[in-house]
């Protein structure tokens, strides 16, 4: 168990460092997928396999792929080194990161972790779904939030269609000549 934890922690942290350090945007994105996979491994260790599967499906399978897709479409593929543009802010970034790290370390150190163990969380998908959809006599706030999130996604999809739609009269371009 401790070996698995050390492996996952190392994978997550080293990949996260790689995201920041690497000079190549594509490398950063790939390191990010490694970091996401490590987090998914943590979810498995915490007896939440459904969360792990969603983590892999959404973050590794969709977010990273779309980011890579975007990088490749917007940059010239012949240019090997995509210089990152944020290097001017490295000292500000360092102080923010150090501050957040110190704050998190403080919070984690004053928390009493005695009563919490990995087995106390929601175990099964069924219980998770019941909580989410408010089927049992739980709080129904999660149902409301769930519905609000789905409406938000619907709005985003419709907005994407509106933004990307060509105005009539610009000619029928079906992308065939690519």
């Amino acid at each position, binding site marked *: 168990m401790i070996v698995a934890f050390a492996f996952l922690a190392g994978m997550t942290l080293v990949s996260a460092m790689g995201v920041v350090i690497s000079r190549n945007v*594509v*490398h950063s994105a*790939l390191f990010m*997928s490694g970091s996401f996979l490590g987090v998914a491994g943590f979810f498995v260790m915490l007896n939440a*396999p*459904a969360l792990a*599967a*969603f983590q*892999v*499906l959404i973050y*590794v*399978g*969709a977010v*990273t*792929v*779309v980011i*890579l*897709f975007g990088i*490749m*479409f917007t940059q010239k*593929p012949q240019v*090997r080194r995509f210089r990152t543009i944020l290097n001017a802010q490295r000292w500000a970034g360092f102080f923010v990161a150090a501050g957040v790290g110190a704050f998190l370390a403080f919070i984690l150190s004053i928390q009493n972790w005695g009563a919490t163990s990995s087995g106390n969380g929601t175990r*099964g*998908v069924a219980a998770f779904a019941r909580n989410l959809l408010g089927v049992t006599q739980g709080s129904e706030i999660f149902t409301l939030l769930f519905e609000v999130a789905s409406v938000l996604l619907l709005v985003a999809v419709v907005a994407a269609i509106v933004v990307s739609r060509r105005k009539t009269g610009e000619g029928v371009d*079906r*992308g*065939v000549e*690519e």
Partner: protein
Amino acid sequence: MQTVLNLLEMEPIRFFISFGAILFLVLNLAAILTMAERKTAGYIQLRYGPNRVGPRGLLQPAADVFKLFTKENVSPGRADLWIFLGAPIAMFIPAAAVWMVIPFAPNAVVANLNIGILFFVAVTSIGALGVIMAGYGSHSTFSLLGALRGAAQMISYEVPLILSLLGVIMLTGSLSFVDVVNSQGPNFWGWYFLPQLPMALTFYIAGLAEVKRVPFDLPEGESEIVGGFMVEYSGMTWALIQASEFASMGLMASINVTLFFGGWQPPLEFLDLGNFNWIWFGLKTALIMFTFQWIRWSVPRLRMDQLMDLGWKILVPITLVWLFVTAGAMLVF
């Protein structure tokens, strides 16, 4: 003897042995499928196919593997070497790992995850990452074009693929492949392909696109971009890409069988073979794989716009409509 068997059933040992067996099966499946592919092509085109090595050419895969092992592994001079070499691994591991959750026979499953279907969807979605890595790492225009096509295609067809699973999930009330198979009757009219016929067809087509086979082989596109994302690969790295393609093709066929064609359930009740029901599973999966190959040698490639139209304007609406039909039927009956 009994103690040995008990020892083998203990948890980590059982898992590692059965996972090794799965890996053995997947690698051999890839080898056999290359052979079957060429034989099918031969018979469809009225010729023999490979027939020199061994009886009726049956040892051809062994010769192929031997050749590929001894071949030099060339990589382009300005390739991004880590990504270039990591891509085949990133494609093969997901294709092999999902086999863990497939029930081959009653009680014969490596890991009966209660989120099996979700696991399948999540892990196969990593495959797109491998395609992009191969295309970018090769530092070649053809590769990059193939990778962009592949990423667009795999992201688009994931939507109808996932939506077409929802009908079965609603009918079963479970995400576990074992439960899905158990809830389909031992006769063929109890299988889900009858009440879920549009979903089954959508899953078949979307699966075909997801594993990048003809008529959806735009990422490879032999006649236009000479090999797409795998154009720069040679030797064993190329073999690993091919192996992962064939492994995911077999995987898609077996998931088709598990979800819609009863898994290991016999087609008629009196044909039940007990623990040997994996024969039914194998026969059905082989039949689906044969239809994949049959399609490959009969149908021309789609254009990119036709591909997107098919995915977004036909398959997604079909699945949404049938989702409502299924929900309504479950509400009424």
